[in-house]
């Protein structure tokens, strides 16, 4: 019934206050993107949850190492990477708002911003690992650093391959394949990118803030 009303009387619809689109976005009351990407997202979140469980047990058994560990890490690098990832998520959300508003060129610009943020994240992480090595912090230094490297390197890999999917999305928008009427694959890619940001939202305080 609702669909009939929407189809017969197109009206401005505001998604997250980001702008008006002609009809309801594909995410309203539905699975954003497609089911397959959500299987992947929940699989990845389960994997990260297992890392977190390992962290809980390791911290309980080696409290001194987990109290000292965060104080030795480069907090600035961790904070910058958090800011970069949050901004990248924001760029993706703006890209989605742009494609729904039939502004493909704006969408591409926001996606380039996302890709740049992903690249910047990788550079900062690389610098941080180098800084760690210079300060004698290695994956086998103690249990805290083993968990730190295991968790952050795994997350880094996710940022790497998700950046590839953003590059793919840029190509498809430029080719006119992803449009205002057909962009559910872009929604799927956006959802996956947000998942990576969400994982870091937990990892950052666990490794850099809490002692």
């Amino acid at each position, binding site marked *: 019934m609702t669909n009939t009303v929407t189809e017969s009387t197109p009206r401005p619809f505001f998604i997250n206050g980001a702008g008006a689109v002609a009809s309801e976005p594909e995410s309203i009351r539905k699975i954003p993107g497609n089911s397959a990407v959500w299987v992947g997202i929940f699989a990845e979140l389960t994997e990260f949850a297992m890392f977190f469980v390992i962290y809980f047990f390791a911290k309980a058994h080696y409290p001194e190492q987990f109290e000292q560990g965060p104080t030795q890490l480069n907090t600035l690098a961790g*904070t910058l990477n958090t800011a970069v990832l949050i901004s990248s998520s924001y760029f993706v959300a703006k890209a989605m708002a742009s494609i729904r508003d039939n502004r493909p060129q704006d969408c591409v610009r926001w996606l380039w911003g996302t890709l740049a943020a992903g690249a910047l994240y990788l550079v900062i992480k690389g610098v941080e690992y180098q800084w760690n090595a210079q300060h004698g912090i290695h994956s086998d230094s103690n249990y805290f650093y083993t968990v730190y490297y295991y968790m952050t390197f795994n997350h880094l890999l996710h940022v790497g391959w998700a950046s590839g999917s953003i590059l793919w999305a840029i190509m498809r928008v430029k080719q006119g394949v992803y449009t205002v009427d057909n962009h559910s694959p872009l929604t799927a890619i956006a959802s996956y990118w947000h998942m990576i940001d969400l994982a870091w939202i937990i990892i950052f305080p666990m490794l850099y803030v809490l002692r």
Partner: protein
Amino acid sequence: MKKLTKLDLTWLVLMVITLLNALVAETADPHILITAIVCLSIAYKGRLVIDDFMELLNANRTIRTLMRSYFYIIPVLIFVTDLFAEQLAAISTMS
């Protein structure tokens, strides 16, 4: 002057919380109250990203519930395992 959208405001709030977290990392001594505040900040940041950036606020209910639950359960586990660290170590030690 261009009006800020909800996305812009969400980004601003997330950045402020991140900076406050960094401040805590640099200045605060370990305390269960600090852990509680940090856990609340994780839950709130997750909720903002899930509802506003990921657009799950009005999406499929099952997916929204599962995603939101993740950001209730993990912060609670962080807090509880910090509060009962000795007991956790004791029950997971092989004699």
